Every structure is written in structure tokens, then in C-alpha cells.
């Protein structure tokens, strides 16, 4: 087979007509060439209108400050799933999946408050011992001197275990959680898709719901409500009367939110340190730098490339007129490389002075609930890698996910020196 001629995306992005740029094309993430297009947009069309794409017309907000301004204006820029929710592709109305990330106040606020205590500082302290022992066991079980896939053996394994703990989900079935998460985010245009159609997605969601209904029914009748997420939903005032569809929506939200994002940060971190040996040397010499290295990993990966909003009224972003009903993507992945806010943004630097100044968790009322939990898992992972002084060698560049939403790594071949 002949390989297609390599395209020089840096040159292409510089020279193509602005209105032909479509940053929602999943291929530019799979090929890891997205940065060229956003660099051009930030400079020449920071709030950009793509009038023609397979998912219809949409606006792109690419500068850090404009993204924050859009996020805090939640009265005008709605997250509601009734209008299309938080991803650019509109799903058929009858397949609407209500979840609080895709709701506006007051419903959003009521439901978020139910879930939030699971990741309170006190609860995180309780979790941390368990997370550490599981990470230790997983690292000790890895082969030495042999090539294996870090994504499967470490990133998926650890985040799957974490999710099972949050839900108090039967531990032996935890890969089901990973599968449901992957089905939920599969782009149907992906040549490697897990499912063929929305009907099939609905079928898998049906299995997921049936499983979770069983757990709900067990827990709703428990005399002592447990501290897990399902018990919280089953007993919480704002959630206990949810329809099954709404329960499913919130379960999917927590599975995807707590899974993909942390998984891809774990995979990304190994690749970033491999590519930046001087940064790893700094960390090895001074493990206290993990405090700033962890947020830098999360900025540099940007596990969710964007969130979508829909304009409820005519408005303005960065001087451009947005019309009622327009779709807007806030590209965190671009804002995190905005040279006006972050110095030397294309470099991975683990001792930045203000490392938490990034958009990966979003801002405003939808700002990630699980941010500290995500950080905690990454921190403990690297503490335990350092404690063992594992020399992880990446043997092939990462394979990347076909998606403009989940910025993911699907395979990372590594070898740990014996």
C-alpha cells in the first residue's frame, strides 16, 4: 500500500482561506496537527465562523479571555441539552440525554449540589490511601523489559478502578464502565468506531441503564445510605425522583467525566516526560515539583478540547455579533496555548509560576466537579513512579483518538527498563 503524501499542515493552515478552516474535523486531532489551525485563528480570526461543516455552522472562540467571558455569561450562552447541549453535533431530539453538565440553572445547580460532596476535600483524603495502594499494585504488576500498552495496562485500569470505587460498582465488572464511556463518546464517523449507529448506541445505553437501575434499587432501600455516587443520587432530594433517562444521563456524565479525562492525562503525562527529558530530570531531582507539574500536564493535554454553548439571544463575543440560536465552541485546547496569557504556551514546563491558570477544567458554574480528584490521581501515580524510579521508555509515538471533543490517546507503547 502507498502511504498518502504527507500534508504540510503548518503551511496549509497559514495559507488556506479563513472561511475554509474547520477545527471540528476529528482528523486534525487524530493526526495531532490541530495546533497549526488554532494558531492561525487566534491571530487572524479569534472568534471564527465556520459556515459549512458536516455538523453545520458554528462559531469558534479561540482566545483565553474570550472563552472565560463566554463561560461566565451563562444566562446568554446556554448548556441546555434541549438546544443541543455541550457538543457540536446535535443529537436527534428523541435521543436527548439530560445530565447536569447540559442543564442551565436552577436545575443544574440543584443536581450538582447532590453530587459534589463525593469529591469534597474530606472525602478525597479518605480516598487517597486506597488510590495509592491500587496504583502501587498496578505498577508492581507491569512487565519489565517488555513492550506493553500503557493506555490499557495503566491509564484505563486505574481510572476504571477509581470509577468502580466512586459508584461502589462491582469491581470485577469495571471494564464495562470503560466500555460504556467509550461508546458514549464514539464519533460515528470514526473508522475505528465501536458502534455503527445511534440505535446501537441506544442499545448499549439500555444495558448500562439496566445495570445501574439494579444498583439503584439495591441502594434506595438500604437502611444506611452509602457514601457512593449512586446512593447519593438515589437519596438526594433533587435527584431521587429523576426519570430513568435522566438517571442514565447523569451516570453517563460521571462515567465519561471521571474516566476519559483522567485516563488521557495519565497517558499524555508519560509521553510529555518522554519528549521533555530535561523536565523529567527536574522532577526526579525535586519531586515537590509535582504540585505544579500536575496542572501543567492537564493544561498541556487539555483532555476535553471544547465545550459548546448555544446563544439564547443576540450577543457579542470579542467584537463579533452572535445571533440567537447560534452554536459556539469554546476551544479550551486553543485558549491553553494562547500566547497573550500563557508564556511560551507550546512548551511543557513543569515549574510554571501560575500552573493552575489554564482552561482544561472550564470556568464558571460548570467548572469541573472532579478537578481535584483528577489531579490527585495523577499526583499519586507520579509519586509512586518516582518512588520506584521506573525508567519508562516510549517505543512508538502515541496513537490518537478520532474526536474533536475528547482529546485522547488510544495506544502508547512503552517499555520499562528492567
Amino acid at each position, binding site marked *: 500500500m502507498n502511504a498518502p503524501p504527507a500534508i504540510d499542515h503548518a503551511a496549509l493552515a497559514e495559507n488556506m482561506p479563513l472561511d475554509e478552516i474547520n477545527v471540528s474535523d476529528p482528523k486534525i486531532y487524530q493526526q495531532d496537527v490541530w495546533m497549526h489551525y488554532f494558531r492561525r485563528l487566534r491571530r487572524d480570526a479569534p472568534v471564527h465562523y465556520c459556515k459549512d461543516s458536516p455538523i453545520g455552522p458554528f462559531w469558534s472562540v479561540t482566545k483565553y479571555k474570550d472563552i*472565560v467571558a463566554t463561560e461566565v455569561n451563562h444566562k446568554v450562552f446556554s448548556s441546555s441539552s434541549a438546544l443541543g447541549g455541550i457538543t457540536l453535533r446535535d443529537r436527534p431530539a428523541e435521543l436527548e440525554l439530560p445530565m447536569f453538565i447540559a442543564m442551565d440553572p436552577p436545575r443544574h445547580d440543584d443536581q450538582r449540589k447532590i453530587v459534589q460532596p463525593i469529591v469534597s*476535600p474530606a472525602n478525597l483524603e479518605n480516598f487517597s490511601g486506597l488510590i495509592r495502594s491500587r496504583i502501587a499494585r498496578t505498577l508492581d504488576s507491569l512487565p519489565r523489559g517488555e513492550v506493553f500498552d500503557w493506555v490499557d495496562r495503566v491509564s484505563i485500569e486505574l481510572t476504571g478502578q477509581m470509577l468502580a470505587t466512586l459508584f461502589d460498582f462491582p469491581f470485577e465488572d469495571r471494564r464495562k464502565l470503560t466500555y460504556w464511556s467509550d461508546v458514549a463518546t464514539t464519533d460515528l464517523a470514526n473508522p475505528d468506531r465501536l458502534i455503527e449507529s445511534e440505535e446501537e448506541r441506544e442499545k448499549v445505553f439500555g444495558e448500562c441503564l439496566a445495570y445501574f437501575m439494579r444498583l439503584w434499587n439495591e441502594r434506595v432501600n438500604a437502611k444506611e445510605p452509602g457514601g457512593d455516587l449512586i446512593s447519593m443520587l438515589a437519596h438526594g432530594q433533587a435527584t431521587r425522583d429523576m426519570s430513568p433517562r435522566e438517571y442514565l444521563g447523569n451516570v453517563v456524565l460521571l462515567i465519561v467525566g471521571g474516566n476519559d479525562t483522567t485516563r488521557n492525562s495519565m497517558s499524555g503525562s508519560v509521553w510529555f516526560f518522554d519528549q521533555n527529558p530535561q523536565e523529567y530530570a527536574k522532577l526526579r531531582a525535586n519531586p515537590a515539583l509535582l504540585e505544579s507539574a500536575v496542572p501543567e500536564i492537564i493544561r498541556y493535554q487539555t483532555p476535553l478540547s471544547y465545550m459548546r454553548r448555544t446563544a439564547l439571544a443576540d450577543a457579542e463575543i470579542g467584537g463579533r455579533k452572535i445571533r440567537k440560536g447560534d452554536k459556539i465552541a469554546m476551544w479550551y485546547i486553543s485558549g491553553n496555548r494562547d500566547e497573550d496569557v500563557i508564556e511560551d504556551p507550546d512548551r511543557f514546563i513543569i515549574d510554571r509560576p501560575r500552573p493552575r491558570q489554564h482552561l482544561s477544567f472550564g470556568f464558571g458554574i460548570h467548572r469541573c466537579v472532579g478537578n481535584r480528584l483528577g489531579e490527585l490521581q495523577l499526583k499519586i501515580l507520579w509519586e509512586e513512579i518516582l518512588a520506584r524510579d521506573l525508567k519508562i521508555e516510549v517505543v512508538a509515538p502515541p496513537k490518537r483518538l478520532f474526536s474533536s471533543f475528547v482529546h485522547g490517546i488510544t495506544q502508547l507503547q512503552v517499555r520499562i527498563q528492567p
Partner: protein
Amino acid sequence: MPRVTFVAHDGTQREVDAPVGESVMRAAVLNNVPGIDADCGGECACATCHVYVDEAWLGKLAAPSEMEASMLAFVDGSQPNSRLSCQIKATAELDGLVVNLPKSQH
């Protein structure tokens, strides 16, 4: 210049100058007061600049905006005297303001 006292969770006190018109958050960050993260840089969008305002001063502050109230609703350990320090502007009347810091910003 108005002075603001930050009382850390362990009781340690720090008194700093807060230029009129600047926010209490900025006064903390400019003086490296630990315990104020201010991830969003003062846009009322992250709630990591959370403080508990000393009761004696509460009445002297302008009421929180709707956005601030929304963000405070999700803060861990939110209390009636919770405020986001990026939304408190230093004024002459606030000279001597005392705010207490939570154990951690979440």
C-alpha cells in the same frame, strides 16, 4: 492605604496593603499570601479565592452579585459569611478588614 488581615486556617495572621480599587484577592496574590489560589485571575469564575469575612465587617460589604452567589453555592464549606475575595474592592471604609481563609481552596 487600606490594610487587610488574612487569617490562615491555622490561625497565622498576615496584614497587607490593599490599594484602593484593587480587589482583596489581588492584595493577597501581590503579597504572596498563601491560601488564595485565584485560578481564574479574578473573573468570578473559579471560586478558588474563597474567604470567610469577619462578622464585624460583613455589613460594610456590597451584596454579592448573582454570579458570585452562584459560584459560592458550589463552594466546599460555604457559609453565610463566605465571599469571593476577587469580588471585594478595597475602599477607605474597609481599612482594617479581617478575612479568614478556608483549609484549602477546592
